[in-house]
């Protein structure tokens, strides 16, 4: 299968006035197209920074990074990568429909292709058809994140980067959205990189879990869960294999 992401000796962090501040260094990572990878780690381990480098929001400090065989900038310009933020980042002055349509409104010059997705179908797909004319402040937290996901899916991205998208939601809403996201993933075939600080979410959602450690930021392990899940990537939350995986993840996180 083709590679969605290929990092070799990648070093990421921030350019500060005092010089570069490395957050995560010498990262070697290959993610196949269509994979669902969850990224788990404590604050400051660079998990959000990694997504931002892949999305071309940040320049890497060093090393090599290829996204779909190209530079992150080329992939971003074509909208083959979409980003879902923890705060849904909906524009309060636009309705649900207006927010989902935002990608049709801005940045079209660099796009170079026609967007054919029907906004109505997309809204129905995330269960928001009835709420199309509402404003964001009239929605619940879970509904707002669905709008953000619909907006991200509008351009049929091949890679979806999600930065703790359900981190601020209550557990029941989060469980439901987790299942809906898995359904969307199977349907679209997109590669998803999903940052979370929930062990349960990481194990339940990911085919593989990338566990990062902080101070200094580093890869602790990559846990492969594909054998525990069925062909569609599903595994019941209470399955022994998943419970065991969560135990291992907890151990990895605790390990110095």
């Amino acid at each position, binding site marked *: 299968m083709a590679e969605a992401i290929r990092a070799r000796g990648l070093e990421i962090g921030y350019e500060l006035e005092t010089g570069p501040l490395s957050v995560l260094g010498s990262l070697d990572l290959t993610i196949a197209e269509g994979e669902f990878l969850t990224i788990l780690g404590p604050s400051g381990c660079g998990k959000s920074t990694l997504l931002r480098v892949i999305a071309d*929001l940040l320049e890497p400090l060093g090393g090599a990074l290829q996204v779909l065989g190209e530079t992150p900038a080329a992939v971003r310009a074509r909208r083959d990568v*979409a980003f879902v933020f923890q705060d849904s980042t909906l524009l*309060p*002055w636009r309705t649900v429909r207006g927010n989902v349509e935002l990608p049709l409104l801005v*940045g079209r010059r660099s796009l170079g292709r026609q967007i054919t997705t029907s906004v109505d179908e997309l809204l129905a797909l995330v269960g928001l058809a009835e709420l199309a004319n509402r404003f964001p402040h009239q929605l619940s937290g879970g509904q707002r994140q669905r709008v953000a996901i619909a907006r991200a899916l509008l351009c049929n991205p091949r890679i979806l980067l999600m930065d703790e998208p359900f981190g601020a939601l209550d557990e029941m809403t989060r469980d439901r959205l987790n299942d809906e996201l898995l359904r969307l993933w199977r349907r679209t075939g997109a590669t998803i990189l999903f940052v979370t600080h929930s062990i349960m979410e990481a194990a339940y959602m990911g085919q593989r879990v990338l566990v990062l450690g902080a101070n200094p930021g580093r890869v602790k392990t990559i846990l492969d869960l594909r054998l525990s899940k069925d062909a569609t990537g599903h595994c019941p939350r209470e399955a022994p294999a998943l419970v065991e995986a969560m135990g291992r993840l907890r151990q990895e996180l605790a390990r110095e």
Partner: protein
Amino acid sequence: MSKPFARRWRLVLPLAGAASILLFWQFLIPAAGVPPYIVPTPARVAAVFAHDWSLLWGGFVPTLLESIAGFALGNSVAVLLAVLFVYNRRFEAAYFPVVLFFNTIPVLALAPVIILIFGLGMLPKIIIAAVICFFPTLVNMIRGLQAVSTSELELFRVLSATRAEVFWRLRLPRAMPYLFASLRIASATAVIGAVVGEWIGSDKGLGALIIQSTFNYQSDRLYAAIVVSSSLAIALFLIVVAVESRVIRYR
């Protein structure tokens, strides 16, 4: 059941309060021996509206035009300068302190200077009204244009939005609540600016009417002119609020 009750009283109580003060004033002032050329009764002020309607209207129109023109000028310049400041930090660093200093000059001290430069027509009054509107809008607009979150900017960057798109689709709509907050203030201060300008050098407008009737001990006219100026400010305020509710529909 307490809600409809409370709503009815919210309208009735302020009206009753105002009426009680007017009644008190109507009967207490003469009873206290205050002559009507010092403080007129409400009934005498009302009579001015009946007898000298054309005089009040003649004062009202220039002040209205000066206030609106000054409001438009001062706020437009403030918005444009705010955009320049937000997009050019060096320009801001160089000129914002100057603007800040300029703002500390009392408008009453500035008005003669403006009249000296621009003469006695309508223009100096418009400029004084503009100056008085300018600063709150500048400060609020700068804050509003900068009120975008990091993730909003990242969202627009992931979408490869141009600088112009970030401005029109993100910064400007973000700034609207801030802008209207200052426009509401400016709707009242523009009238103050126009009236102050007319005090210093004019024979037209409500400001001139106020000065003339003060010097002639025509206190009933003075009070009527005050009522008209304050009504003008309230009307402008209500127009701003009405426009705001159409522009900002999401609250």
